[in-house]
């Protein structure tokens, strides 16, 4: 049954989209910064995983955590040394500066790794359930993407750091008066976003060919997911990601993959104009 296959494909893709966007959404929602670096951070995570797999025979799932920690550290440093100084500036400034950083990272990756598409081939075979066929590597990526997204949810809700991040998102000034060290919370948020981007890159390298050229495409997905689901919350990113995955899977089947991307953007623009707080968003809560 083709409908079921489309549904399953959409959900597996959607979980990756959710994982891809959740860090971006967190940074946007809490710091009010549109992080143009996000796409390149995902690619960096993918490349590092691929490099470890090819040269040191490290299994991508074993590389996932170290790669995420490495990008976490990178994100912390970027936020502490640079973006914290600009965080109260208008969007024009912060977007431009992260774009400048993105150009540097993008160029560095092109020089260090060059832009050939890379993929980790694990050859885990496929799973057939009736007429629905799924590659095992996709299933693994799906489960881990969901797990990472839910892990962030748990961190946000159960840990001290997570509660501090939520408090800063709700009211920066009040949080500061309560004794929360804003700059550290910002650095933590940005680092979490970068670490999740790295982990997501590691997952994507198992499923898709990764190249620096798609960093803009991934960033675009993060935009769309955030607008569909609403900003700064994990459930929002999850809903946005799954909805986008299903839409792309369905419209890719009906109109071809090129137009599927277009439909995602179209939906985003319509939502931006009519419901800028997203499907799950509350009015006046940004």
């Amino acid at each position, binding site marked *: 049954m083709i409908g079921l296959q489309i549904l399953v494909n959409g959900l597996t893709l959607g979980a990756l989209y959710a994982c891809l966007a959740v860090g971006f959404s967190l940074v*946007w929602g809490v710091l*009010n910064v*549109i992080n143009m670096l996000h796409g390149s951070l995902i690619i960096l995570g993918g490349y590092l995983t691929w490099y470890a797999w090819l040269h040191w025979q490290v299994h991508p799932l074993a590389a996932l955590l170290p790669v995420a920690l490495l990008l976490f550290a990178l994100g912390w440093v970027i936020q502490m040394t*640079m973006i914290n*100084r*600009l965080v*109260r*500036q*208008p*969007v*024009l*400034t912060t*977007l*431009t*500066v992260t*774009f*400048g*950083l*993105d*150009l*540097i990272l*993008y*160029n*560095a990756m092109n*020089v260090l790794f060059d832009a050939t598409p890379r993929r980790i081939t694990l050859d885990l075979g496929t799973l057939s359930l009736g007429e629905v066929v799924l590659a095992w590597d996709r299933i693994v990526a799906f489960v881990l993407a969901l797990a990472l997204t839910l892990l962030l949810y748990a961190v946000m809700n159960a840990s001290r750091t997570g509660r501090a991040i939520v408090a800063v998102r709700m009211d920066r000034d009040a949080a500061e008066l309560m004794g929360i060290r804003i700059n550290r919370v910002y650095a933590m948020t940005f680092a979490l976003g970068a670490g999740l981007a790295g982990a997501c890159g590691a997952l994507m390298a198992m499923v898709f060919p990764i190249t620096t050229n798609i960093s*803009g495409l991934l960033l*675009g997905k993060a*935009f769309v997911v955030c*607008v569909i689901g609403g900003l700064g919350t994990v459930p929002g990113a999850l809903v946005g990601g799954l909805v986008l995955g299903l839409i792309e899977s369905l419209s890719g089947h009906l109109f071809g993959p*090129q*137009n599927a*991307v*277009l439909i995602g*953007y*179209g939906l*985003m*623009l319509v939502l*931006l*104009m009519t419901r*800028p707080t997203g499907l799950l968003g509350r009015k006046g809560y940004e």
Partner: protein
Amino acid sequence: MKRSMAIFAVFALAVAAVPLAGDNYLLQQATFVAMYCALALSWNLIGGYAGYPSFATAAFVGLGAYAGALLQNAGLPMVAAWVGATLITAAFAALLGYGLLRMKGHYFAVGSISIVEVLRLVASSWAGLTGGGEGLNVPIMPGGPEFAGRVFLYAMWAVMLLAFASAVWVDRSRLGFGLRCIEQNEDAADMVGVPVTRYKTAAFTLSALFCGTVGAISASWVSYIAPTDAFSILLTLKVPVMVLLGGPGSLLGPVIGAASFVLIEQTVWSRFLDYNQAALGLVIVLLIFFLPGGVLGRLRWRAKPAVQPGAAPAAGSAP
């Protein structure tokens, strides 16, 4: 004001005199200077005066390029195709502005940047009209490259002059005053009777108008267009960077920014072939950290030390 216009007149005459040097490389660079000046002056209307962080420049340039190329291929004379492309781009911007300008700050930035992406996707998938990924050829201008080079320089120069003239007009008119009010506090401006929606749409349309012309001219200049070059994300961010470099919200800022940007591009990072994007990125980062308010902001701060240096660029513009 008078001094700005005098300085611009000297600058424009200098650009117009470049063909006298008889150097084709210089001629090309002068054309780029005029082109980026026109784009930066245009962007300044919406991004500088009204404080709306528009990243749609490349959408309008690309739309103008495709409209001009298609009109020229349909048999229209070159200049008529440029005018047609300008009108089409302006009409598109006016309609788009109606929807897009309801958003503010971050949402507007993301919405406007997505327009570039959407148009690029449309251009590459609508192969029947646009030639898809293979791009479109535009008739090469007869008369030899020397002559054509001059024609395109003066065409871009004329657009730069028109863009400056419209900036002067906006600066002096009620529209400019209203836009500055919107930049500082849109709700308050609305309250005291500034026709906010009309002014924003007017500024957005004006800012798109000359982008369309520039696109059409450059399509004829290069005589080939393809989706990725026409709708370039790099261009869409370069232009605001130029204005930031010069000083937003002023008449001369965009001109200074665009001219010095092209100069830096040619002298510094064209030398680093493998690292030119990183060099551009570094320039952007350094600019934001060390030159907030741009060259003009820095000059003003020197002249009047009583004004806080950080106050000029950050004024108003809600996040």
